């Protein structure tokens, strides 16, 4: 997926505030760094040259050096002042982020698993709620409140272009919010080391215009369509009688397990296995045949199928739009 993944490319007010603070901090720190190095260089150039044989200069022992002392005190005062400025700026930014309006926010509940993301859209009407995985769609311009939970170990939710990160901790619930102001796909990735496949635990935030988002949400709410007769229908049978159904759910079918991602609309997602593969029939086949090859350590076992069965299964999965 073509996506943005950059702290310095903010596309929402949260990341934007931080970006402004970053620019200020970078300027101040850059200045101080340059000043200190300049002082050091001047010192090196104006100091005399000596060697092990030259007598040490003891003229300063027991005698204060007022000039030098004032210079050091002044440098210190200046650095303290600059630090106070940075502390203040940081605290103001923090407050600004905390005060950000969340009126009419979209509510999401993200649960991190080793090594994928479960996303629940929490609507006032229970019937309107739905679950997807590894891909979050949001309307532009509307605040999003994300409730964060962890199923197993600590993970961390981070979409650099939209907002800072927040940990997901077993036994605790945390929240964060963000708003995407421009349409686009923003990449996120787990930031806290969470075991074997921490590296391949990405996700995407797709920001759409509100109407398109509504259409998408409506589609997600509906159960999986009945596959057309032929190979897809046979694919569904294969899914139900092999191990797939022991871990995955497909709404509107008997498969209701929750160990792996919900596959009800998996064909509409851009990637497979938390961003590890693009969602094409070929990659899907490779994944099902041997997930360990692609994501060693993942909890999904390999599934041996004849090539017709595999085609049928993948044909079925392709219908899950």
């Amino acid at each position, binding site marked *: 997926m073509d996506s943005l*993944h*950059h*702290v310095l490319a903010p596309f929402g007010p949260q*990341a934007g505030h931080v970006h402004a603070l*970053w620019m200020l*901090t970078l300027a101040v*720190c850059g200045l*101080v*760094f340059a000043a200190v*190095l300049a002082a*050091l260089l*001047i*010192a*090196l150039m*104006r*100091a005399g*040259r*000596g*060697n*092990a*044989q030259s007598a*040490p*200069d*003891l003229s300063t*022992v027991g005698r204060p050096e007022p000039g*030098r002392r004032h210079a*050091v005190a002044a*440098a*210190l005062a200046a650095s*303290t002042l600059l630090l106070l400025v940075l*502390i203040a*700026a*940081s605290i103001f930014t*923090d407050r600004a982020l*905390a005060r950000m309006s969340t009126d009419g926010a979209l509510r999401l509940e993200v649960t991190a698993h080793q090594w994928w993301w479960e996303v629940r859209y929490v609507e006032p009407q229970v019937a309107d709620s739905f679950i997807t995985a590894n891909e979050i769609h949001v309307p532009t311009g509307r605040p999003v409140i994300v409730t964060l939970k962890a199923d*197993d*170990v*600590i993970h*961390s939710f*981070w979409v*650099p272009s939209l907002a*800072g990160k*927040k940990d997901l*901790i*077993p*036994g605790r619930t*945390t929240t964060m919010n963000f708003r995407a102001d421009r349409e686009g796909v923003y*990449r996120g*990735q*787990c*930031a806290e*080391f969470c*075991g*074997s*496949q*921490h*590296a*391949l635990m990405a996700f995407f935030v797709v920001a759409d215009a509100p109407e398109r988002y509504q259409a998408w949400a409506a589609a997600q709410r509906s159960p999986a369509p009945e596959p057309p007769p032929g190979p897809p229908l046979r694919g569904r049978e294969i899914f139900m009688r092999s191990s797939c159904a022991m871990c995955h759910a497909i709404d509107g079918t008997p498969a209701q397990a929750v160990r792996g991602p919900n596959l009800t609309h998996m064909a509409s997602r851009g990637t497979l296995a938390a961003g590890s593969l693009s969602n094409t029939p070929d990659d899907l086949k490779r994944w099902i045949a041997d997930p360990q090859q692609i994501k*060693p*350590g993942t909890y999904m076992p390999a599934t041996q199928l004849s090539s017709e069965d595999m085609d049928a299964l993948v044909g079925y999965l392709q219908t899950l739009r």
Partner: protein
Amino acid sequence: MDQPRHAPASRLKDGPGPGSREAAALDATWRDPPGVMGWLSAVNHKAIARRFIVTTFGFFVAGGLLAFVMRLQLARPGSTLVGPDLYNQLFTMHGSTMMFLFAVPVMQAVTIYLLPLMLGTRSVAFPRLNAFAYWIFLFGGLMLYVVFFLGAGPDVGWFSYVPLAGPDFSPGKRTDFWAQMITFTELSALVEAIVVITTVFKLRAPGMTLNRIPLFAWAMLVTAFMILFAMPSVMLASTTLITDRLVGTHFYNPAEGGDAVLWQHLFWFFGHPEVYLIFLPGLGFISAIIPTFARRPMFGYTAMVLALIATAFLAFGLWVHHMFAVNLPELGKSFFTAASMLIAIPSAVQIFCWIATLWSGRLDFKTPLLFVLGFFFILVLGGMTGIMLASVPLDLQVHDSYFVVAHLHYVLIGGAVFPLFGAFYYWYPKVTGRLMSERLGRWNFWLFFIGFNVAFFPMHLLGLRGMPRRVYTYQAGLGWDTLNLVATVGAVVIAVSVLLFMVNAVRSLRRGAMAGANPWGAGTLEWATESPPPPCNFHAIPVVHGREPLWEAPRAEAQRSSPAFTHVGGLAADTRELLATTVLDARPDLRVNFPDPTIWPFVSAVAVTGLFIGSVFTPWAVVWGSIPIAIALTAWFWPRRSETAVHLSLERKP
């Protein structure tokens, strides 16, 4: 012009001259016994320290090799050089090695060598305990590497966050061995801290009042106190982790009323000060090197000492900045932001004082000074990124990304490894009697400096571009490919420079120019004795008249009408007698008899290791394992009739 490097040295050495009968007797008294048994029972601080330094440097090389493999793996996207299993072990072993088996121990090892020489005494306090600390450390470190080579290296990070490190998500013995290694090495660190504190407080040469202690010794004293407060926290954490894993307690299991964040508090309450434990000794090295090569005493001695102490205090108040991404109360976060930023001030004091010293010095650009200058560039940059990380909103963006990897290496390599390399070049002659090659030293420095920046600077950008840390691979097309490749090239250059250093160190053992007592014309006491020093360090204990005794001794004498004392007489030559002085003004206080070499610290260490390794497999090892330990300790402390007789006779004729 008279040669200051000889005049004061000989003045401070007018006790029994080299070659005299008393000198020979002293050497024999303080020498460790020969043979394998003698080697195992050595207690001379220089012998222990030499082993300690070589061991810790060995761990540095091992940790570096692991990192090198990691960098090779990350050079290209989607590389299959090592899989996630091995990679996770690599970064865990790398972190654990560098933090627990290299950075703090190497500083302690160097200190154990230098401290008695700098303070003008014949031994560290508690020499047997010192030997014990070394053995414990060695066995703990070896244990970790042995299990790694047996394929059971820990793989949940050097920070071992629960629940990932808990019984449910990392079964097997990996994390248990890791936790025991922590307890081992921190035990060693605690013991060494006690040794250092006692040595600095009680064994200084007469006249070395509190405001004449070399800044390096101050740095190590402050560090030792920090160790006393920080290490118990992580030992508590590693012990509760292992009981969670082996005995079924639930300290960290939220399902049973435990708390996963508790681990983080305990760990970072140690882990943050740990950074300063590594950094303060580095500052001590700098404060020793700069005056010598600027040919003037340090500017702002008192300010430097106060800054060290302030850093130590503040360091305990900001562990939470490692946990900003955990949901924490607002006000608390503002407090920790302020504390984390303000710790820059004492560091600034030190930096400004060094610059002021250089400003009016007469500089001698030898390799040690080069490393100090490299330190300036790197540490100040690392300090700036530290300020960025201290800010909650910025941290929430860059925390756990490669930006942090860059920052922490700038601070640790800039703040500790560069000064340490400077220190190696500076004190090498004091250990071996020969100088290291300047030419190779320059190559070593420039390759290290350039390689370091090439390797780590791009990581700042990688972090800003969203690359999380601790990933064994990444996908192409995220804008990370080139930067990672560049970083790997930098790592190759660093490897070459460290190799050059080793070549230089080994070659100079035989080929280096003879150093003499004081090759750099330095002012502190360790340069008053031969290089390498005799077993007793000083044939006559010097009396100190200033902060730079070798520079100031003649002056102090000239100011007095009667000749000032230059050395202490009257210590016995045929038994290990030492002069203890008062804490504040270093007046002669007591004559103490030091224990002889003995095998029991070694045996005790073996027994302790047995208990710890056994306890990874069965809790009963704690019960049965304590029996050999009790036996060994009893033998260790059993008074010997001959020693008692000597002590009594000394008491009778003072």
